[in-house]
């Protein structure tokens, strides 16, 4: 882990960012906050719908705006996150919150890959007739997603307080 961190800190990207002036870190931090709010704001709507909220709104109707917005937020957050980390990477060596957060982001992506392949999800977003067990599958998917992203956000926020 330390070698990887030292590599990022010494990378051309890090050198470039450090040379951009005193407001750079703050602005990248801002992009990170925007990315997180876009991701979590969107995914919370979708996950709560999967958990049974607003049953009169079809899952497909909620998924149409929330999925692309969440994906946009994710790309913004991950890009700015790597940039923020690059400034002083080795300083976070041994930071437990970072060590929980990073694998949790990967788990979040794996969860997306699994959910989008679930027949229950496919039926829900295509507006097909649901099978009896679909509701349970979607409940679990929504709960897991909320839990994963909340953990990512909590750990991310705590990194700076360790």
């Amino acid at each position, binding site marked *: 882990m330390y070698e990887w961190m030292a590599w990022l800190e010494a990378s051309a990207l890090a050198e470039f960012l*450090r040379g951009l002036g*005193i407001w750079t870190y*703050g602005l990248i931090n801002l992009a990170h906050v925007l990315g997180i709010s876009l991701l979590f704001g969107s995914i919370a709507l979708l996950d709560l719908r999967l958990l049974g909220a607003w049953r009169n709104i079809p899952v497909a109707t909620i998924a149409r705006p929330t999925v692309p917005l969440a994906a946009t937020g994710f790309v913004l957050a991950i890009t700015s996150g790597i940039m923020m980390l690059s400034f002083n990477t080795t300083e976070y060596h041994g930071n437990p919150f970072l060590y929980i957060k990073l694998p949790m982001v990967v788990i979040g992506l794996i969860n997306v890959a699994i959910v989008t392949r679930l027949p229950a999800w496919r039926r829900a977003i295509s507006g097909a007739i649901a099978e009896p067990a679909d509701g349970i599958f979607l409940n679990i998917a929504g709960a897991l997603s909320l839990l994963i992203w909340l953990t990512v956000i909590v750990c991310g926020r705590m990194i*700076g*307080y360790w």
Partner: protein
Amino acid sequence: MLILLSATVPVCAHHGWSGNTAGEVEITGEVVSGVRLSGPHGTLQIRDADGNVWDITLAPGPRTHRAGLREDTIPVGAEVTVHGERHEDPEVFEAKVRRVIWEDEIFDVYPPRD
């Protein structure tokens, strides 16, 4: 030269200070690596009279800059004194500081405590 001052004052209300609870310190030394303001916080490296190289953390870049401490203010090799809190591990030469003194100039990157 390292003078340990009173540790009875409350810890500065700023995040990331959890490892710096060993109390107030005043460190005088020679600037090894000048002020950098690009990261989450400004940084500075000084070597004290015992030869220990200290990693000094200042306020965030814009705030340190506003306190008058720019990257080109203090030349490498100059003698400076900093006031702040050192790392709790006496083997780790790190301090987060609120005041930097160079020649007759005082830079309070955080509000002075009195």
